């Protein structure tokens, strides 16, 4: 947790935590793959009432944050989600809202979609990855061709989070003028959604095909050919939420693993008394504090739109995602055989951290991006 929260933010964090603990205890994640949907819209609507969808949205568009620092407030929510490996639409909806709000100054009017998302009535997600390709939002193979007053979209996206439940896809596509984003209803003719398998039990992904999908020019988000800054903003918000969520999970895993080390005895001594293990716990403690530090500063930088925000989110993602899986794996080791059982919660956290590690740029991708920023 960020050490510099305001009293309001602390209260907000604890409200969110109570809600999640009550509605989404971590153990329930195991049942989600067999549920008809990853989460219930009514439940999501309650989250929206708690403000989960409002933080990035200015008051005139129906939003509003706790502290006036929406990105940091949102990071608090993400951290609480991570603590219980909560399902839901937090990441995809926040990313889309970040783009829509960013584009609201110029370009088409998406007020009604924004309002629907804030109210928790609409669900939207970013369709940005493409089959067989890594993180390369600036060079989509998906195309949008102007035809009179409309655009025709063709292409395939995959790893679309919540693709099965989304009402709207924010589609990143190439046009002759440059990369452009479109808001496409999931029920538009020519849109096909195929569920994918994923490691995370609490989330679903889908492949989404766009075959001659016709949308009005008003579906453009921002200006044609000028999506690059929007994409960067969306990415930054995605990364802030990812690292915050990972930190929430890490704190929880570390807490119950430390407790285990005190409670579990071997050869008449608690595990916590073995120096080789103590030193590994010390390393983990250090890494987790570092994860918290860099997550917090990434949120602040994106909040403040600092010059170094782009670098700081890459720093945070590259650091946090690398160490998270390393730490959780060592926590598995500390638990012995129990750690690799379905029954233990560890794998729920490990699954989510592994998925978060992979998406919106791997640590390796972000290290290369940092090198780019360094003009190496």
């Amino acid at each position, binding site marked *: 947790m960020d050490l510099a929260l305001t009293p309001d933010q602390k209260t907000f964090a604890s409200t969110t935590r109570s809600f999640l603990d009550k509605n989404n205890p971590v153990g329930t994640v195991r049942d989600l793959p067999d549920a008809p949907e990853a989460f219930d819209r009514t439940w999501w609507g309650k989250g929206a009432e708690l403000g989960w969808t409002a933080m990035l949205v200015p008051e005139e568009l129906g939003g509003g944050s706790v502290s006036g620092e929406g990105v940091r407030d949102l990071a608090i929510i993400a951290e609480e989600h991570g603590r219980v490996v909560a399902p839901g639409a937090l990441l995809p909806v926040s990313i889309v809202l970040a783009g829509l709000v960013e584009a609201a100054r110029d370009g088409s009017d998406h007020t009604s979609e924004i309002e629907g998302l804030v109210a928790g009535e609409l669900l939207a997600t970013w369709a940005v990855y493409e089959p067989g390709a890594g993180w390369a939002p600036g060079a989509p193979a998906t195309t949008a061709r102007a035809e009179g007053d409309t655009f025709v979209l063709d292409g395939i996206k995959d790893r679309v989070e919540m693709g099965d439940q989304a009402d709207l896809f924010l589609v990143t596509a190439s046009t002759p003028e440059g990369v452009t984003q479109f808001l496409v209803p999931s029920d538009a003719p020519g849109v096909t959604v195929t569920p994918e398998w994923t490691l995370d039990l609490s989330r679903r992904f889908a492949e989404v095909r766009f075959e001659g999908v016709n949308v009005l020019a008003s579906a453009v988000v921002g200006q044609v050919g000028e999506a690059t800054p929007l994409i960067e903003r969306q990415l930054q918000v995605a990364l802030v939420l990812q690292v915050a969520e990972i930190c929430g999970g890490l704190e929880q895993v570390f807490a119950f693993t430390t407790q285990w080390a005190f409670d579990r005895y071997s050869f*008449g001594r608690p595990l916590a008394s073995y120096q080789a293990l103590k030193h590994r716990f010390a390393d983990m403690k250090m890494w987790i504090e570092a994860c918290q530090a860099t997550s917090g500063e990434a949120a602040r930088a994106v909040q403040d739109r600092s010059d170094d925000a782009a670098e700081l989110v890459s720093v945070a993602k590259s650091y946090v995602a690398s160490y998270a899986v390393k730490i959780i794996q060592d926590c598995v080791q500390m638990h012995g055989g129990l750690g690799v059982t379905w029954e233990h919660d560890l794998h729920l956290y490990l699954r989510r951290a592994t998925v978060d590690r992979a998406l919106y740029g791997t640590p390796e991708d972000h290290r290369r991006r940092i090198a780019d920023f360094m003009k190496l």
Partner: protein
Amino acid sequence: MTVTDVIEDVEAFRLRARAWLADNMPKLDPDAVPPAPGDDDEEWVKTRELQKKLYAGGFAGICFPKEYGGLGLSPAHQEAFSQESEPYQMPLLLNVPTFSICAPTILDMGSEQQKRDRISAAIRGDEILVQFLSEPSGGSDLAGLITRAEKDGDTWVINGAKTWSTCAYAADWALCLARTDSDAPKHRGLTMFLIPTKAEGIDMRRITQVNGSTEFCEEFFDNVVVPADAVVGEVNDGWAVASRQLFHERTAVGGGSPYVSGRGTGRLSTPPSDLAEIARAFGRNEDEAVRELVGESRAQHVVQDQLIRRVSQGIESGVMPGPAASIMRLFHAETQWMLDDHAITIAGSGGVTGKDNQSLAAQLSVNYLMRQGSSLGGGSTEMSRNIISERLLGMPREYAADRDVPFREVKRGR
């Protein structure tokens, strides 16, 4: 010596086996994939049938003594039979632990009656044997177990719990280690029992691992009553029996048991990730950083084989002490860590979602969930490091708070 005691020449035996196998045993289907551990209930039924066939044909229990239902032949005979049996379906699931661990332990330490009953039943294909050793509270500290057996007249009453019993769901009898004297130091108050796995008061359930495997079971004992003659070896000398059992386990794992028949264990373990395949599948094989990872992992695998050769030869020739085997165990874990870590790094953003649960992404990422499996099973890597530092390098032993004190005074957690 009567005429029937003349031992058949190995080559004659081989020819006789070859002919019999061809006439009696079903051929292997080259495309058949063994089922994953835990998904093999039908396989166990078939296994018993195959063993019964071997027994009927006079080719079961080749190295076990005749008086307990075996053939009393040499390891060379067994080896010849195993070679000949390769094209055929064989009851491989019985190799571990029934024939290579449990039966030899009974042979070494059991009563005459136990040998006659259990070993011969196993050889006939009537019974399957397993081990009840580890406990939920135990971990690396096997001798610190707390399942207790209390004398009640002529019988013993067992209460407690066991876990990580491989294939116990398919078994009939188990070697079960329990504490019979809590006033003695930990190793000296244990007794080994041979108990029916379906005895009243035993509640068995299968453990699901994160990769979906259910090969292990856990058992809860609620006043399980066993007769006095269920004791294997001496009362309170169960550690001697367990040590023998562990010895046979190591021998079996090392591939040196004369009691296995046919090649392998009949179990499919999850196939390891293939980094070159992953690199190609995810279009990353031209990336120099990825090529380094693939090359590094390949080197690690080659070095592992080389290290196994060196250490095995070292132990065999006496240049290295036996505990040097822990070096191989620890290195195996390192190799697995690297493989699983590199797999998710190379797969990158494509490695956590896929078409379905048979996709390459699903395989490699589920393998990643099981990354620590190889550093836990068969003694943790932490124990290996203790052994290497203490028994190879001669460093002072770790303080054990339970050494030489009555077991009931030993502190216990959960």
